[in-house]
């Protein structure tokens, strides 16, 4: 084998070796790389009970209650399959509203999830308000996004099979 070919093989082996190592490593740490649990995961007992963790879902429509004279709020967090009550005291991000995807950090206490931080998640869709209104009129209701446990949309289901 010529020296140039040796170097080619070396480069190829490095790429394959590192690729294989990364795949195995990422598979081993899959659970640790999750940024948040879903309400269904919590119902199934997958989340830790002693330390605080993050949970992501949608703010239940019609469930938001604000305290009259403090920053205390309570609302239901849902993924369509399971839901539970969340309590939080503090300033909410601009995108926080009913039906919005959020990620809350905290712990379960007496069947309530007491959050210490609430972050809003936004989707990957960008459109002018008029287009969004037209879409809503056409659909009637907003469907639960698949990432929060709702049924996959037609395009998402198609992607999965490809």
């Amino acid at each position: 084998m010529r020296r140039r070919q040796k170097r080619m093989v070396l480069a190829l082996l490095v790429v394959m070796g590192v690729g294989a190592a990364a795949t195995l490593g990422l598979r081993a740490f899959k659970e640790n790389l999750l940024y948040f649990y879903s309400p269904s995961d919590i119902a199934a007992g997958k989340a830790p009970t002693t330390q605080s963790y993050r949970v992501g879902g949608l703010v239940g429509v019609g469930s938001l209650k604000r305290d009259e004279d403090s920053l205390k709020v309570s609302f239901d967090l849902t993924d369509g399959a399971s839901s539970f009550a969340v309590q939080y005291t503090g300033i909410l991000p601009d995108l926080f509203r009913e039906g919005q995807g959020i990620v809350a950090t905290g712990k379960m206490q007496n069947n309530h999830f007491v959050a210490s931080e609430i972050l809003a998640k936004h989707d990957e869709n960008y459109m002018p308000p008029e287009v969004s209104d037209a879409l809503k009129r056409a659909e009637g209701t907003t469907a639960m996004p698949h990432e929060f446990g709702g049924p996959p949309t037609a395009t998402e289901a198609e992607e999965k099979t490809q």
Partner: protein
Amino acid sequence: MFKTIKNWFHLMGSPRSFDRIAGKIIPWLIAIFTLLTLTGLYLGLVVAPTDYQQGESYRIIYIHVPTAWMSMLIYVLMAIAATVGLIWRIKVADAIASASAPIGAAFTFIALVTGSLWGKPMWGTWWVWDARLTSELILLFLYFGYMALQAAIDEPRTAARASALLAIVGVVNIPIIHYSVEWWNTLHQGATVTKIDKPSIDISMLVPLLLMTFGFKFYYAGAVLARARGLLLEREQNTNWVKEIIAND
């Protein structure tokens, strides 16, 4: 056809003709970059409509998204140039790889900073350790590591060989960055433009985004050629062709 391409590679592989050709096309690349970017900024910041959910804040995508794409593209090009330099020992390829690193690091840095500025009002936080943000930060460290390794070795050929291996190893991070939002639950949202079905962005918002994307590619092309030219002149300073250029100035 194949012969023409081969001849062109041989021509560009010689530092002397690379210097001459790069010197001619750099001004054009920078002119196209300026034109595309100014049009893109005007359409994106003034003409494009506000977003249904994020209002005016979404306009930061016109910087954030193109720079984030460039941060990954430049890494791949840098690794390819470094590999070509490693296997075929072409000085021009080594110079292109070294010249790419600071430009790629700058794009990565801008992507991280603009993302952070966007995250505070929208998500409610400057930074989270989710898979997308963390893997992009690792990309910045890979660029820094590559630059530090080159700077630590005095002999240019040894430096190119050692850092090429680091560049090749780091390529594994690129698919991780791209697919992180699909593989794991992340706070960062999924892909908007680069997905299989049609992009989930209104056409009036997509056009300026694409203009910015192409504009930044021309910026990279111009900047990397200019930097590589400088590196080659420095490394070849004792050769006749460089002495001729200096004598003619």
